[in-house]
């Protein structure tokens, strides 16, 4: 049973999507179900506590060590692959493209407006952010959001873009 199907409110939202989206979502859920028997991580919840600041007045306790669930997703190839599928299916690519950004910020630059730890990325996806990032927590389940966070995090590896399709940018067309 996929996690979206357990939540009636979420199912209602998904039902409003076009058929392609619903089919895609179910396909991903099925992938996840299979992967659980292998090594793909799954999660019933998001991170416990996330601060998006690095300021803690009066020497207050800094954030706890990296989230245990997050550590299972970060760098996991299957989670990243599922995250990439979702990244396309949920139209994340229309704003962030292959990491360079557009309507949304770049994800490959290594600079994260709201924190670059995987649990911080999780919360940016789940809660949304004020300058235009939508909140996905009523559409996607925790495993899917962790997958997306794992994929987004993987884009920031400082290497040439993995996904450009064709010509080098400085070429010009011959008439």
């Amino acid at each position: 049973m996929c996690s979206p199907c357990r939540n009636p409110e979420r199912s209602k939202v998904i039902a409003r999507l076009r058929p392609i989206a619903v089919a895609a979502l179910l396909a991903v859920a099925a992938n996840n179900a299979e992967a659980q028997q292998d090594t793909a991580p799954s999660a019933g919840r998001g991170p416990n506590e996330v601060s998006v600041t690095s300021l803690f007045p009066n020497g207050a306790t800094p954030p706890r060590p990296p989230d245990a669930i997050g550590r299972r997703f970060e760098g996991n190839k299957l989670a990243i692959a599922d995250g990439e599928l979702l990244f396309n299916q949920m139209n994340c690519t229309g704003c962030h493209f292959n990491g360079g950004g557009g309507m949304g910020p770049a994800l490959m630059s290594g600079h994260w407006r709201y924190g670059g730890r995987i649990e911080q990325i999780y919360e940016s996806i789940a809660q949304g952010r004020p300058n235009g990032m939508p909140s996905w927590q009523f559409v996607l389940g925790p495993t899917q959001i962790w997958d997306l966070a794992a994929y987004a995090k993987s884009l920031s590896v400082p290497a040439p873009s993995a996904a450009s399709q064709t010509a080098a940018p400085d070429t010009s067309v011959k008439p």
Partner: protein
Amino acid sequence: MPAKNYAATRFSALDEINGANVSNLQVAFAFSTGVDHGQEAAPIVANNTMFIVTPYPNIVFALDLTKPGAPIKWSYQPHPAAASQGVACCDVVNRGATYSDGKLFFNTLDDNTIALDAETGKVIWKTKLGDINTGETITMAPLVVKGKVLVGDSGGELGVRGWLTALDVATGKILWRAYATGPDRDVLIGPGFRSFYPSDNGADLGVTTWPGDAWQTGGGTMWGWIAYDPDLNLIYYGTGNPGPWNQEQRPGDNKWTTTLFARDPDTGEAKWALQYNPHDEHDYDGINEQILVDMNVDGKPRKVLLHPDRNGHLYVVDRESGEIISANPYGYVNSVLGIDLKTGRPVMNPDKLTRVGVVVHDICPTASGLKDWNPSAFSPLTGLMYIPHENLCMDWKSRSVSYIAGTPFVGAEVVSKAGPGGNRGEFTAWDPVERKAVWTIKEDLPLWSGAMATAGGLVFYGTMDGWFKAVDAKTGELKWQFKTGSGIIGQPVAYRGPDGHEYVAILSGVGGWAGAIVAGDLDPRDPTGALGMIGVMADLKTKTAAGGTLYVFALPKS
């Protein structure tokens, strides 16, 4: 109004600044907008006051031109929803305000039209026209015609259904709304509708030229320019691209996207339509300006409109009937082989059509067109049209995409590149009678600024690395240039100051689709970023930085 007049010529009759003295031009004053996104607005001057609108958060400044240094007379902050920034496809731009009868009208990114008292900045009315949760934003400059404020929406990359709406200037009440897709009653097509070409006539084409209910998310937004002919009592405007970009998801002509409409401003009723790019598959919006001129065609005077389309062709259209008199490429084009004057339709190059899963290389022009929104000027003294445009091509791969309200509905991966010759921009002086370029200036970067012509025999435009230029209207010879603080994508204007002298004004501040890499701090390593624009603008961060400053120039006081 930003376009100077209803004919949208962007021609100023002022001639104090001319070819002989323009080399002495100097800064009279400058003003920081405090907003470092793309400044696409035209400064508007009325009653010795200059009005400017910034990109999001759409702050309006009124500057008192009667005082030294033009201090702030008032300012107004509409506080648009911050989330609206997340559904604006191509930077958070605003193309300016319009003034009429003591009121200033402008739009906010989060879909409000606001009327201010031009003297005090007090809100007279505010009307909400759309919903950012459907992906709708507003970026265009409104136009006032016969007591109505005309406003259109943006969001063609998010499956937004396009419309043009008329609001009462006094109250802000919505008087009519004409959709670009859907049944005739929604498009305001009635018994009086007679298009020139057969394929633009028929019942409910806004539904029947789409599969199923795809017209509901089919785009056709109106974020460009409106012209008005008072004698014919018709407004003219074009609609945007169909959605999604992946053409395989929407077989059919996809009416009325990329369409020129002639409408009665009193009722909104369409008199005729001309679809520039039926079943567009390259993102060739039809929203570019239309300049209304009367000219001789084969010895006979004709009322025409001039429209440089994204598809690379300069349309000369009879503005009474909608007949295309001529349509010629004003730069390098290979995706369209020509415009069939018998049918009104482009003849497409089959090698440059787009398909799912296939990378089609070197499609020219690119998605933003041979020319995008940035408006041309027309000088009645030279009879020439001055077209600031691009010289870009692209590689395109379509893929399937699902509609999820409030998210991008594109379905294509694009990489833009420089066109033949390697120069990414061109400034072309075009003779619409002879149907040919008289001269062309090659520019390294794409031109994203508008043009303005003056009776002083000059034409002004700006470049994306910040040069503001004056060239000879007859020859194109560079007469003067000034390096502003950031790239220029704004609209130059000229006005007579309270001291009786001529001034020229421009907003500097890079951004917009072509400048998104700087305004949005995007990563140059992903050529697909910003809808493929990063592919050809990867070097822009090395040539300019973000900013937002008004510059006003004048001759030295003698």
